[in-house]
Each structure stands twice: as C-alpha cells, then as structure tokens.
C-alpha cells in the first residue's frame, strides 16, 4: 500500500543520506575551503614581510663578496615545520596515481621554504649582522605519512648559514 510521504519521511530520508554524506565529505570540504583560505592569508603576510626587508642579506657563496674587514661571525639558523592539509594530501594521493606534476604541494612547500628563509633574514637583521654566507636549506620528513598509525604529515625545513658583521 503506497502512502503519501509526509514531512517526517522526507526529513528521515534527508538525514539518512545527508549525515553519512556529511561525515564522509564534510571534513574534506572543510579542509579544502578553510585550508586554502588560511594558507593564502599566510602567504600574503609573508610577501608583505619580504617586501619590508629591503636588501636581501642572504647568499650561498662560501666567502663574502668584496674585501671588507670582518668584525665577527656566527652560525645562525631558523626552522619551520609544516604539514599539508587533508585536501592537499588527497589531491596528492590522486595525483600520484597518474604521476606528473603535483600542484597541490607546490604552494605550501614554497611557502615553508620562503618562511624559513624570511625568519633567518629577520633574525640576522635583528641581531645586527650584515650578511649571511654559505646558506643551506635542508628538508626532512618528521613522520611517516604512508605507513603506520601516525597520520600526521609533517616536514621540517631548516635554513642555516654563517652570519657576518663588517667592521
């Protein structure tokens, strides 16, 4: 016997489909929307700071340019630990099926390298050094992403160099 569906049935149907759908795709959608918004904001702030720095003191030459007398030198380093968002990891996973370019990670890794460098610049400038030579950037994975129970994906980027102060 067919009955006309009342409001309760429609609501029930809506909930029956909606809740599993939300639980499945909700976090990923949240990650996609808020993640890109958040990361874009961070990138804008970084660009602003890079502009304010003015002359870039950093170089990866092993000796300082010119023959200015050196007053003092010191090892300086700064690091940043980042993790891609769930959405980016999903895109990366899909991308790795087909291979080729992975645009999902490009932005956040680019941000992290530049952030580490910018922090080093700011530290060097605030410690009254003039230049940084022999800059090295090193990357290391902090936790397993594909294996094990640890689902946190984290990558550490450290930028280090010798800061020098001229007389």
């Amino acid at each position, binding site marked *: 016997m067919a009955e006309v569906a009342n409001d309760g049935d429609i609501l029930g149907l809506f909930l029956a489909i909606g809740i599993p759908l939300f639980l499945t795709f909700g*976090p990923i959608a*949240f*990650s996609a929307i*808020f*993640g890109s918004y*958040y*990361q874009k904001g*961070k990138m804008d702030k970084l660009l602003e700071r890079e502009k304010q720095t003015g002359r870039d003191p950093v170089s990866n030459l*092993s*000796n*300082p340019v010119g023959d200015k*007398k*050196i*007053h*003092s*030198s*010191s*090892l300086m*380093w700064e*690091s*940043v*630990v*980042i*993790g*891609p*968002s*769930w*959405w*980016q990891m999903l895109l990366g996973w899909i991308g790795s099926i087909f291979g080729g370019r992975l645009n999902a990670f490009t932005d*956040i890794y680019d941000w*992290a390298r530049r*952030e580490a460098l910018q922090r080093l610049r700011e530290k060097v400038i605030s410690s009254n050094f003039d230049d940084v*030579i*022999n800059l*090295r950037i*090193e990357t*290391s*994975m*902090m*936790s*397993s992403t594909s294996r*094990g129970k*640890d*689902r*946190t*994906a*984290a990558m*550490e980027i*450290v930028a*280090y*160099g*010798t800061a*020098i102060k001229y007389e």
Partner: protein
Amino acid sequence: MTQGQVQLVVSNTETIPGMTIVQSLGLATGSTVRAKHIGKDIFAGFKNIIGGELKAYTELLTEARNEALNRMLADAAARGANGVVNVRFATSSVAGGAAELFAYGTAVVVQ
C-alpha cells in the same frame, strides 16, 4: 655562541671569516633524540586538516637542535678548541614519531 666559559666561534663555512685556522682537532658531534608529545600530536593532527605550520613541532625541533648544537660545542670545548667550522645538521626520524637531530663540525683552534 658561548659554551660555559669558553667563547666558541661557529661557522658553516670551511674557514671562519676574518680569522685563520691554526690547528684542526677532529670532528665534534652532538646529537639528541626527541619524541613528540602526545597532546601536541593530537593538536598537530587537527592542524593538519587545514595544513600550514605546526608551531608545536617547530618549537620542539628548535629546542632539540639547540641542544644538539650545545652538545657539539661542549665536545669541541672538551678538545680544547675555540671554534667549530663546516657545521652541518642532519635529521632522521627514528621509530614512532621520534626524531634524531645531529650536528657535526670540525673543531679547530683559530686566531
């Protein structure tokens, strides 16, 4: 950088700018292994949803790297050096979210 009473000059170049190396005293090393804090780990897991910097880990590794560097400096000072050149950092993840931070360089006497 200072270590105890001795003032050590540290550099990641092969020479110390503005100084001359008179004696090499061998390799100075320092390392430390740090595990992630479970509370921080949970927070970092949430932060992973939107991505970006995991500040708790940045602080943890900064602290750990400082310790590795200080141990390297102590090693160098124990050899009677007053400088460390060509310093390199290495990181490796040990089992289950622990990370080893390693710093090494050549202990030297500079003038």
